[in-house]
């Protein structure tokens, strides 16, 4: 089956987190002003209200409550507000059951958030922009949402291949569906106007050194998926039908000691996320 044909079959498309690529562009541009950001967030009243509510949460520890979006963004900082908005959008996208992957309500979102926190923490070590790394981690699973909605019948054959023929999930998906969930994710991200720095690492998450660009980001996503699995965040069926690419390991210069230190660090990131978002 061709990916384009499959996508047309999807009855309920995931809602587009349209604000994220726009915010990322504002974040990257030296020409954008603070007013541009406030104006963009203000366009979505429900989102603006959620930003205000979260700004007043104990985590940000503001000395006094704020009831003004501009004031909230100024006091918390644009990077934190961006992360907050990415979190709200991803929760809307993912906070459901994904039956064909045996994922209960919220489990896909927990795993995506865990990967995002790990990506963000590791980003400075590999000279990456932390907010981009966070976005890649958060959105790398959206292909599974589309597959869950469009291919429940066919997908049991994917797990047959995974569990009986010992194929990786990505390979089994390609054999049964003709494409894998990373390609589906990339299709939507392109459609939603994300840039290559987001959708290439996601499209090549299983074969990061084959990415036409942003290979470092793709390798880091690949590693973060593996680290999240070690913490048990990647719950669901097929979570371990994934191979850590030796080329990616070499490209990130990882030793056994380093990788175990990263597992410890990933646990700390996840503990932080749990206390931050009361998970």
């Amino acid at each position, binding site marked *: 089956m061709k990916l384009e044909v499959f996508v047309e079959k999807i009855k309920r498309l995931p809602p587009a987190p349209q604000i994220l690529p726009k915010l990322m562009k504002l974040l990257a541009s030296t020409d954008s002003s603070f007013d541009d950001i406030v104006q963009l967030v203000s366009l979505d009243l429900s989102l603006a209200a959620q930003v205000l509510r979260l700004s007043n949460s104990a985590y940000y520890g503001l000395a006094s409550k704020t009831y003004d979006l501009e004031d909230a963004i100024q006091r918390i900082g644009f990077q934190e507000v961006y992360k907050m908005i990415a979190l709200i959008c991803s929760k809307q996208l993912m906070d459901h059951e994904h039956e064909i992957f045996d994922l209960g309500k919220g489990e896909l979102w927990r795993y995506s958030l865990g990967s995002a926190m790990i990506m963000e923490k590791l980003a400075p070590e590999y000279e990456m922009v932390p907010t981009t790394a966070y976005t890649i981690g958060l959105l790398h699973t959206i292909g599974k949402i589309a597959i869950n909605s469009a291919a429940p019948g066919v997908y049991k054959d994917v*797990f047959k291949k995974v569990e009986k023929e010992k194929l990786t999930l990505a390979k089994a998906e390609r054999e049964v569906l003709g494409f894998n969930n990373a390609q589906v994710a990339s299709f939507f991200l392109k459609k939603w106007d994300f840039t290559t720095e987001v959708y290439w690492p996601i499209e090549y998450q299983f074969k990061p050194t084959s990415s036409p660009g942003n290979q470092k980001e793709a390798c880091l996503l690949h590693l973060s998926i593996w680290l999240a699995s070690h913490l048990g965040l990647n719950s669901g069926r097929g979570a371990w039908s994934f*191979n*850590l690419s030796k080329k990616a390991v070499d490209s990130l210069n990882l030793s056994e000691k380093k*990788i175990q*230190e990263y597992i410890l660090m990933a646990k700390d990131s996840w503990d932080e996320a749990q206390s931050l978002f009361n998970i």
Partner: protein
Amino acid sequence: MKTQKKVSRFLGKLPSPLMSSPQSANTNCHVVSIGNMDIPDAAGVDLSAYSVGSSGVIALFDETIPAGGILYYMLPDSSLSPERALTQPSIFADTGIDLFVDSFIKHYKSKKENIRVFLAGGATAQTDDDAFKIGEKNIERARAILKEKGLTITAEETGDPSNRTIRFQTATGTIFVRMNAASKEIHLK
């Protein structure tokens, strides 16, 4: 009741991660999170460990009481970070198992010959390409330490490229393991 009071007093002296298991919606079930252990001081408590991947879970059960506990460790060896092992011994197989077994025996005045041991986890990647094999190392280390402690493993659910969710009924010694959308029941009695 007398035993429970003693257990509570002893737990109060242990490092805080031992006490960190939150209760699930079912108040008779404690969820043990990664890098923690739980030796409940109330009778009939169920213990759960969700989505155990390459990490390891050890459940101890003493039928004569009856009582049980769970350790959910993450990495094989504390030499990686001796400082971390001091504050969170349950993260590592060596420091975690040592403390867990000693605490269990002390809490319940158990005799080693009455203790049944269940070992789970150690998920591995789908093929043999995983250079780090953390899951395998976690399980090998646990087997060696349990042997050193004079304990025999009664049942194991280890390896495979799959996460497992474990629920342990400490009143009966029954363990439910969920893996790949299927469930299995193991009896430690």
